[in-house]
């Protein structure tokens, strides 16, 4: 056998091996029928309500389960698609009515909505699923609470196809919160059949056996390696997905993911580093989409418990000393939305996030610092999460260098991922840190609620202000159409400009690389793959 023969047999066998097993089940497999998506992290459960289910697993809730409602889609300026927070659209619900006092929402469930086993989706299933989200605790209950759902008594089955939510107070967050991944509707009959006394919510069963009505079913799950979705042809939640089978492969090495997408062996590399996005943008074989992440900011937090940062002049000096453009170029690789250099200290709109009125000006920084008690400078550690080192490290180095020029000696404190939450967010110990909170529900008051109120997790700065507290409490549930809403939000943003517990660096983007022929890629606030809209 010569070399040529060897190569010939090799490629023949490779093709055969590649087609073999799925040919058994699907004799008409065609190109365009299957898409391969690579992700860098690992899916650890098929049940979003379970304790310990990690973020990458939320995509299962998105693709495999339905919610009562979903968000619409809008086209951004660059032609890419993004979810539309302002447009709530039906998924399992065919329609809904909100009572005049806005304390009751009544949903009519689609008549043709069926679970995979053929049984109809009923209000009973919805109630069981929502009760389950509250009962299993942890993040699901927390997220349900954001919409004002705290007590199972609020979920009422009116008749098999009518479901009602009673609210303790009217809130603009309630309806959108039924579109989040946590608010899935599970086939309660199938699940209850596998429940035990020790496990009344069938958490063990649903962990590996999803029971939904969604657009895709899970064909196989090899934990730590791959998840294979296959289309549910009877899906009632929306337009039938174009791709029959979607294979989600877990590829830990970033370089390998890049080689795969460049070679064209996979159709989507989800969530790539900004550096790759910048480099791949010039590659004609690959399409790169960078979507600004709504209601999310990369910020430097100044801890109010740290004495120098209690002085407003010091905080402003820091804000003027941060090298924004350099950070944007070297840490964000130019991919993101700049959040500095606004002209006026009064916000012009209630758009959020919006640029803060600071830009790099070392002269001004020095003069502000000289007005403070710390004119001679001071020492401060700058902490960042090692899990976010791709942007955290270059950002911290640039801040260190620049603050050094005005006499603030910054040391770098790299914190391992497992310790980060406890030290930075729960104990709020770090004087100076990099943080990246983003809110699922896209309203400014929601962002302020989690990151500007002292008792809330993402306020790593220990910031506590009576005016802000009152404004947040007044606006959190208020309809944006209320005439009082915009002025109050403007006031909130102005306070954020002035008090600076958080100094925005830039608004991040979610970058993905995909085959040129892949269309329909849509950005979602949950930052997971939504396979339902993909087309090849």
């Amino acid at each position: 056998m010569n070399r040529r023969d060897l190569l010939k047999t090799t490629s023949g066998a490779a093709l055969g091996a590649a087609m073999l097993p799925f040919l058994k089940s699907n004799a008409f497999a065609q190109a365009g029928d299957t898409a391969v998506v690579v992700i860098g992290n690992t899916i650890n459960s098929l049940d979003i309500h379970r304790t310990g289910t990690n973020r990458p697993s939320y995509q299962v809730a998105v693709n495999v389960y339905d919610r009562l409602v979903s968000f619409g889609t809008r086209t951004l300026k660059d032609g890419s698609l993004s979810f539309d927070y302002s447009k709530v659209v039906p998924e399992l619900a065919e329609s809904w009515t909100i009572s005049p006092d806005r304390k009751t929402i009544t949903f009519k469930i689609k008549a043709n909505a069926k679970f995979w086993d053929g049984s109809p989706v009923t209000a009973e299933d919805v109630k069981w699923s929502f009760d389950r989200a509250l009962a299993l605790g942890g993040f699901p209950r927390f997220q349900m609470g954001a919409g004002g759902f705290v007590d199972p008594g609020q979920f009422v089955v009116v008749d098999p196809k009518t479901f009602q939510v009673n609210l303790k107070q009217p809130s603009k967050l309630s309806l959108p919160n039924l579109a989040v991944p946590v608010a899935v509707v599970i086939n309660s009959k199938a699940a209850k059949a596998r429940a035990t006394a020790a496990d009344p919510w069938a958490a063990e069963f649903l962990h590996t056996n999803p029971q939904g009505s969604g657009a895709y079913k899970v064909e196989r799950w090899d934990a730590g390696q791959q998840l294979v979705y296959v289309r549910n042809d009877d899906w009632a939640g929306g337009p039938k997905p174009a791709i029959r089978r979607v294979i989600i492969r877990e590829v830990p090495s970033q370089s390998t993911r890049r080689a795969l997408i460049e070679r064209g062996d996979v159709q989507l590399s989800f969530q790539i580093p900004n550096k790759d996005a910048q480099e791949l943008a010039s590659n004609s074989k690959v399409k790169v989409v960078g979507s600004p992440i709504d209601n999310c900011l990369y910020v430097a937090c100044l801890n109010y418990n740290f004495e120098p940062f209690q002085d407003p002049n010091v905080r402003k000096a820091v804000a003027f000393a941060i090298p924004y453009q350099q950070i944007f170029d070297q840490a964000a690789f130019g991919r993101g939305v700049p959040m500095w250099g606004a002209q006026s200290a009064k916000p012009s709109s209630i758009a959020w996030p919006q640029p803060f009125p600071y830009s790099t000006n070392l002269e001004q920084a020095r003069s502000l610092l000289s007005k403070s008690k710390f004119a001679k400078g001071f020492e401060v550690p700058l902490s960042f999460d090692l899990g976010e080192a791709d942007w955290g490290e270059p950002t911290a180095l640039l801040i260190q260098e620049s603050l050094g020029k005005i006499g603030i000696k910054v040391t770098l404190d790299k914190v391992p991922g497992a310790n980060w939450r406890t030290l930075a967010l729960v104990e709020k110990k770090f004087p100076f840190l990099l943080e990246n909170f983003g809110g699922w529900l896209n309203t400014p008051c929601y962002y302020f609620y989690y990151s500007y109120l002292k008792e809330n997790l993402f306020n790593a700065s220990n910031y506590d202000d009576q005016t802000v507290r009152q404004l947040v409490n007044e606006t959190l549930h208020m309809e944006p159409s209320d005439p009082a809403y915009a002025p109050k939000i403007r006031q909130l943003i102005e306070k954020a400009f002035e008090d600076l517990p958080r100094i925005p660096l830039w608004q991040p983007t979610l970058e993905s690389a995909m085959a040129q022929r892949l269309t329909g890629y849509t950005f979602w606030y949950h930052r997971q793959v939504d396979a339902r809209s993909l087309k090849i």
Partner: protein
Amino acid sequence: MSRLIVVLSRLGQALPTLLGILVVTFLMTRALPGDPAAFFAGPAATTESIAEVRAKLGLDQPLPVQFVDYLADLLRGNLGQSLSTGQPVLSDLAQRLPASLELTLVALVLSVSIAVPLGVLAALKQDTWVDQLCRFIVTAGVSLPTFFTGLVLVYVFYYLLGIAPSPLGRIDIISLPPPRVTGFYLIDAPLAGEWQTTWSALKQLALPSITLALFTLAPLARMTRASMLQALGSDFIRTAKACGLRSSKVLFSYALRNALLPVVTTLGMVFSFSLGANVLVEKVFSWPGIGSYAIEALVASDYAAVQGFVLAMAVLFVVLNLCVDIAYTLIDPRLKIDG
């Protein structure tokens, strides 16, 4: 004493060691600074929900109670549930250990089949070009970090030439793993008569095992060369040569056999080392092995997974050392393993 009794008593002796390892890993995982409850309560958890998770994981109990629970579970064959993968640790290990073993074994077979002849040649032709070549290959192999070698191989053979399959783990995208018997695809696939899957698994193995083999070449080749030189310079070889024995007889029966002892020792060390430590190779080739599993678990303070990993490795080391000792007696009849 028959060999079986010796083996059993050796295994018995390992029990206190294993128990010690259990205690130490238990305490060390608890001493890790991270808080698994906070880590797994999710990004937006409140204090109460973290406390709930902690209670659910049993981490609110005092340490001695946790340890007794752990031992009781262990006796029932339950290694606990990994938080980061969401699977029972036992099934994780059953999945991943064969993957690592298969990769490491293939790499070592490859490595030995190159290193030993290379070392022997280098020793025979000391300071000639063969020796220099051996030195060069060995130095290059050991001084290039494995992830670098791996990435270069991927770049050349997959990205540029397109000869190698996509570096997507043990099997290509569309194929399914063979029905599980041993967990070794190279054994399970032929057993099931799935020749195409065998071929696919073999192709997927090629680049990662070459990467690993290049790295493990150095200690083996150098050790062979050194011990071969020593053997060739010793009195019994001179005597054998003086007696006019055939040079192949001298070389293989007397010199090589004597020189193999340190090589086998090194082999045992290299094997155990590369099994747990080829995290980087596993990452580059998306290999679902045990090294990356352990690292992920450590990062997430995933106690059960870390403990399970250490325990599995400890057992493996005990067995491996025993195998090495038994191999000694086969190579050198003067040696006996004592109980």
